[in-house]
């Protein structure tokens, strides 16, 4: 079943097309990431779904109901913002209870629900604090609890980890994934960070210049990118003979082999298990190859050395794995 459908959505700001005839279907219970560079329209699409932004043309359906004409208040959504959007003058408890109080639920019910949510997001001991007394990660978890309190049909997260530092971001990512497995509410997450999208989402829609380039599972997108944009956005790439290749799909050989291009070694960087080799081809173009520690030891490269590269995989390439003659 489809939880959210956006159909032929257009949104222009003056001459700028933020969304150019975008259609997307988001399955029930999924965690979908809208991934793209800034200005690609991913946040605009999320805000159109939420009703915070009104599209020029197109329709939005939530749980099968056409909500295009409805205000955000009536759409049954939960929205989480990059900068928390906390109600600063309210305690954590009042923040989370906000939506329930507006719905005039009985006090006992509100109290029990808030307790439960604070427990889920790990803020049970913080309910009397004010947002200014919380860390960024705690504020965002409070914002999530607040959004979940009203039992939204869909949960919309706009760069929810964007304002946090790297370590906290990674922790929250894992936490969100677990939360989603527990709560099962259809979730759409906007991010510009491909690693975050791959880590958290079970489906990714890649956006570029107001259009959706490809939708699929993280693995599909990585292994079968629809075009160069998706390929270069979803991981590191090297250009070899005018074609895009993943650095770990480059075979480095000490002798001339079939289809290989001569290159010069610029630098060899040891990053633990992974070894990165910076290369420069005859035209002066830089490219980077990625290999294992063992393979690097076998090659024993030094700076300025001439080697040969071609697309492939060292492990399946007996020809190359053989020591140089």
């Amino acid at each position, binding site marked *: 079943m489809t939880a959210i459908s956006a159909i032929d959505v257009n949104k222009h700001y003056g001459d700028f097309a933020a969304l150019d005839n975008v259609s997307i279907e988001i399955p029930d219970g999924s965690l979908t990431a809208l991934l793209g560079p800034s200005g690609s329209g991913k946040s605009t699409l999320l805000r159109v779904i939420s009703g*915070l932004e009104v599209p020029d043309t197109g329709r939005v359906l939530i749980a099968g109901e056409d909500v295009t004409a409805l205000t955000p208040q009536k759409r049954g959504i939960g929205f989480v913002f990059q900068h928390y*959007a906390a109600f*600063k003058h309210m305690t954590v408890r009042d923040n989370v209870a*906000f*939506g329930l109080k507006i719905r005039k639920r009985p006090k006992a019910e509100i109290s029990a629900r808030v307790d439960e949510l604070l427990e889920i997001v790990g803020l049970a001991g913080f309910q009397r604090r004010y947002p*200014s007394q919380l860390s960024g990660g705690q504020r965002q978890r409070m914002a999530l609890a607040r959004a979940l309190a009203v039992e939204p049909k869909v949960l919309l997260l706009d760069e929810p980890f964007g304002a946090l530092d790297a370590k906290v971001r990674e922790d929250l990512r894992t936490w969100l994934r677990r939360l989603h497995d527990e709560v099962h509410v259809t979730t759409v997450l906007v991010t510009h960070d491909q690693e975050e999208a791959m880590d958290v989402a079970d489906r990714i829609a890649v956006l570029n210049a107001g259009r959706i380039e490809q939708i699929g599972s993280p693995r599909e997108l990585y292994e079968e990118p629809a075009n160069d944009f998706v390929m270069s956005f979803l991981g590191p790439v090297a250009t070899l003979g005018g074609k895009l290749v993943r650095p770990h799909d480059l075979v480095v050989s000490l002798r001339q082999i079939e289809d290989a291009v001569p290159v010069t070694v610029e630098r060899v960087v040891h990053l633990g298990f992974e070894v990165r080799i910076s290369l420069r081809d005859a035209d002066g173009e830089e490219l980077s190859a990625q290999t294992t520690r063992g393979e690097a030891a076998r090659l024993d490269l030094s700076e300025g050395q001439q080697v040969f590269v071609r697309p492939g995989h060292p492990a399946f390439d007996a020809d190359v794995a053989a020591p140089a003659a």
Partner: protein
Amino acid sequence: MRRRARVAAGGVGPLGLGVATLWLSLIVLLPLAAIVAKSLDGGVAGLWDAISAPVAWKTLRLTLVISVIVTVLNAGFGTLIAWVLVRDEFPGKGFVNALIDLPFALPTIVASIVLLALIGDNSPIGLNLAATHTAIGIALLFVTLPFVVRSVQPVLLELDREAEEAAASLGASNPVIFRRVILPAIAPALISGAGLAFARAVGEYGSVVLISGNIPGNQVASQFIADRIETDRPATAAAMAVALLVITFVVLLVMRLFGSWSQRHEG
């Protein structure tokens, strides 16, 4: 030179502190002390008698009642104007923005003449309000308008729009968003602006002096003071001055306490 006290980083040191205290004492505390001393010429009982005399009491009450009404009105309309200036785009916005400060810049006596011409004896709009309470109120509304607008405006500009959107996504209607999200955020600025407006209204002289007619029964406190000085009753004048002083100080103090109370929750 070991005896010289070390100045902590960012501190002004004993000399700076001394100069600041001296300056404040000379400019503010000394004159205030003088007026308080003057008002106590006849002892505390004399001061009380002077304040509670029917004419003095009536004047003080009139001043306070009009000031409260004016403050409440300008708190409401000042917030509305600030809101429109921050959130709406319209042609001539820069002009309107500059217009707000006019009552600040204009000599108050000019305001009085303008109002006299507009709503005085020869009113071109046929509205003769000279020497009425309403006229005093209008004059005070005019001079105190900028206070609330100028204190609320910057806070509205800095307001977290996403908090409003979050409230909307949680189902809050626009009036609820205003009451439960926006108002608490601008309350300290609103109260501070209103407090300043009130303090100004209570002590206003120049803009009221012509339009009020300056007749007993339609005098504000500052006119009462001037009148008592002119008729050589300085003790009564000083008593009224001390009353204004205490009221203004209490209002400003309450304002500050409220301000620091609400600031604790700002992140």
